[in-house]
């Protein structure tokens, strides 16, 4: 993975000093709350329900074991012994003290980490396919480009006060595991017929209050032009994006109001001015950064490991875990492993300091000392020998990290919700837990098959409910917490936004509602058909009538979907 040189270190050290001074001036009364707010947000520091929340950047989701140990140490020393992995591959501490944040940042800097631009109206942490570099369907390893973008966006002087936050996702495989269609900018690395590396550039996607699938603004952008083209998009957005209404300030609204053709004309005209400027990437720079992502010292192994095959045959629970949590790898004899942070009874994405230390140990022992955070809030060991899988599974199981549910209903993606977040309309963690309890029968869960269930506690949609096969959104009705349900959303290259099935439900009804949706699916499904495909084929009507009962849920009844207007 990328290692800082002396210059990268110097820059982060200067940021720590700057924020230390800003915090000092705030505590001394030299900066007002209003003045300090945008400064602390640029450093991922929120004032939450119980205490400040600090969001630490995990650039494009890659971590070393040393970094994970440092994060565990901070959780113990400055927090309550745990932390939360987010859908943007970041990490959040829920209980740090404001005056101790500069110390935390200094500790992070020692292991080449920071909280730069993890909030605020600026370019946020770049997100990436969590199988980048090891996926069998990879076209281009995009990790070096993600790091180059991280550096370019860090303290970009012109784009630090944008109309709204700005999220860039990067993917380099046939399949899309980074949701490039649902970001402000999605960069999908591809090759042309001559094998040259380029980028399919997507703009104006996003979730939130107005979910929109992005538009392709350029089919094939040569890789050298990556930074100048992104610069042109951001300049057009910075100049013309709306600033009068928080809810209409994202780039997707600008693209929608201008239309993609006009927006493209503006961007191309601006790009003509900056194309071939010194920001044009060089072979040397890409080679320099790519060297940090050179393959680890893999062994030459047979594709099939006899001991692994034997273990699969011997242990039903091991094979069930392998079926869900072990993923193919581009090297023979290797696999990638998801360590699930979705054990029933534990808030999705939460990990204790002990678990973090333990996973760091597993990474050292089994995966060259590195790991990844997925946008589904799990941890991934990317480079495990197949022969080690059984031992790894046993070790992970003992720490509650081997729930065999990746891709299944209980692998719930969930924001911290009203238990922690001051933006939330409703709690989300107890809903996730109640649903996990209802579906605790593993055989049943496997029979239901692949199903993404996403929960957001408010319209900011940190739980990505729009792209859940089943999406649950917390809403406020006269001060009470209710839950709106949508079905038919999906991530990936066929990204789609879910449709709301009708009026919202009380919290206690939610496990039953999900159960009725599943029953409908089991009645309606064709063989081998996923839940989301059944929804696509039969529409939402049968699901509605089962959930709301006879006489309810006829077409045209119930809540109007904000999604259908734009989908």
């Amino acid at each position, binding site marked *: 993975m990328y290692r800082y040189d002396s210059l990268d270190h110097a820059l982060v050290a200067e940021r720590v000093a700057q924020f230390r001074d800003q915090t000092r001036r705030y505590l001394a009364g030299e900066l007002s709350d209003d003045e300090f707010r945008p400064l602390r947000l640029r450093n991922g520091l929120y004032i939450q329900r119980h205490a400040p929340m600090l969001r630490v950047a995990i650039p494009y989701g890659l971590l070393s074991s040393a970094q994970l140990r440092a994060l565990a140490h901070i959780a113990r020393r400055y927090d309550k012994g745990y932390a939360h992995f987010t859908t943007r591959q970041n990490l959040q501490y829920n209980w740090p003290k404001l005056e101790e944040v500069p110390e935390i940042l200094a500790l992070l800097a020692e292991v080449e980490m920071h909280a730069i631009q993890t909030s605020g109206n600026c370019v946020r942490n770049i997100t990436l396919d969590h199988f980048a570099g090891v996926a069998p369907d990879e076209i281009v390893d995009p990790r070096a480009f993600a790091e*180059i973008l991280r550096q370019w966006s860090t303290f970009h002087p012109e784009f*630090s006060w944008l109309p709204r936050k700005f999220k860039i996702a990067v993917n380099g495989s046939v399949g899309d595991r980074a949701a490039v269609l649902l970001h402000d900018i999605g960069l999908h690395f591809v090759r042309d017929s001559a094998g040259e590396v380029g980028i399919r550039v997507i703009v104006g996607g996003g979730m939130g209050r107005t979910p929109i699938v992005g538009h392709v603004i350029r089919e094939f952008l040569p890789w050298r032009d990556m930074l100048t083209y992104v610069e042109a998009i951001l300049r057009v957005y910075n100049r013309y994006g709306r600033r009068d209404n928080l809810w209409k300030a994202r780039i997707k609204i600008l693209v929608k109001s201008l239309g993609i053709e006009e927006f493209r004309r503006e961007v191309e005209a601006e790009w003509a001015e900056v194309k071939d400027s010194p920001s044009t990437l060089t072979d040397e720079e890409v080679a320099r950064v790519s060297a940090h992502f050179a393959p680890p010292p893999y062994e030459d192994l047979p594709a099939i490991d006899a001991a692994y095959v034997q273990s699969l045959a011997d242990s039903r629970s091991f094979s069930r875990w392998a079926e869900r949590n072990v993923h193919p790898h581009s090297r023979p004899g290797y696999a990638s492993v998801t360590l699930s942070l979705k054990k029933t009874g534990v808030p999705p994405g939460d990990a204790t300091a002990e678990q973090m230390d333990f996973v760091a140990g597993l990474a050292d022992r089994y995966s060259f000392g590195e790991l990844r955070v997925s946008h589904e809030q799990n941890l991934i060991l990317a480079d495990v020998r197949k022969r080690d899988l059984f031992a790894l599974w046993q070790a992970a199981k003992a720490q509650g990290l081997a729930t065999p549910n990746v891709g299944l209903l209980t692998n719930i993606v969930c924001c911290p919700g009203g238990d922690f977040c001051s933006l939330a309309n409703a709690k989300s963690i107890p809903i996730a837990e109640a649903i996990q309890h209802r579906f605790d029968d593993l055989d049943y869960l496997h029979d239901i098959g692949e199903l993404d269930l996403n929960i957001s506690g408010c319209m900011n949609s940190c739980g990505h409910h729009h792209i859940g096969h089943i999406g649950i959104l917390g809403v406020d009705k006269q001060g009470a917490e209710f839950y709106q349900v949508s079905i038919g959303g999906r991530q990936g290259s066929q990204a789609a936004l879910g449709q709301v099935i009708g009026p919202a439900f009380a919290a206690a009804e939610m496990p039953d509602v999900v159960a009725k949706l599943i029953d409908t699916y089991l009645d309606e499904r064709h063989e081998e058909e996923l839940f989301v495909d059944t929804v696509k084929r039969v529409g939402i009507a049968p699901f509605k009538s089962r959930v709301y009962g006879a006489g309810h849920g006829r077409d045209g009844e119930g809540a109007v979907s904000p999604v259908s207007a734009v989908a």
Partner: protein
Amino acid sequence: MSQIIRNRRVEEDSWQTLGVQAGEEVSQLPAGAVVVPLAVWKARRGELLARGQVGAWLRPEDDPDELADDFGILPLIAVHFPKVGDGRGYSTAVLLRRRGYRGELRAFGDIGRDQIHFLARVGFDSFGLGVGRDPQAALASLNDFTLAYQGGADDPLPLFRKRALAGATPR
């Protein structure tokens, strides 16, 4: 007379900026050097030039290209920041410098020491800080960072084109 930061020093401001308050008409021109809104500059260009020292200032939404023919005769162009979070003026500065403006480029309004480093990087060389903000204390923040990943008005080369020159050593 208020104080400004200019060329990395605190100085008395010799310019009077007119028409900033909402509803403030620019009719009578005071004696001395004045900075007028873009619309006033366009409407009364000849009169203003005959009178003496004059500069123009831009709102966030103004198109900097409207001044492109006047770069040679405007010793000062100022860009207003009505709210700290309105970042359009940063792009305005980039465009003015790119089009070839070489005179004094001033940021003024709701800005303080925590903004001026980035403002300097996009091409501003003078700063009129918000009310009650100490320009002397702010001077130090021009040096909050000694290096940057991107190119800027101060140096068009991004760090990746000069890492070795900048003394990068592995850690």
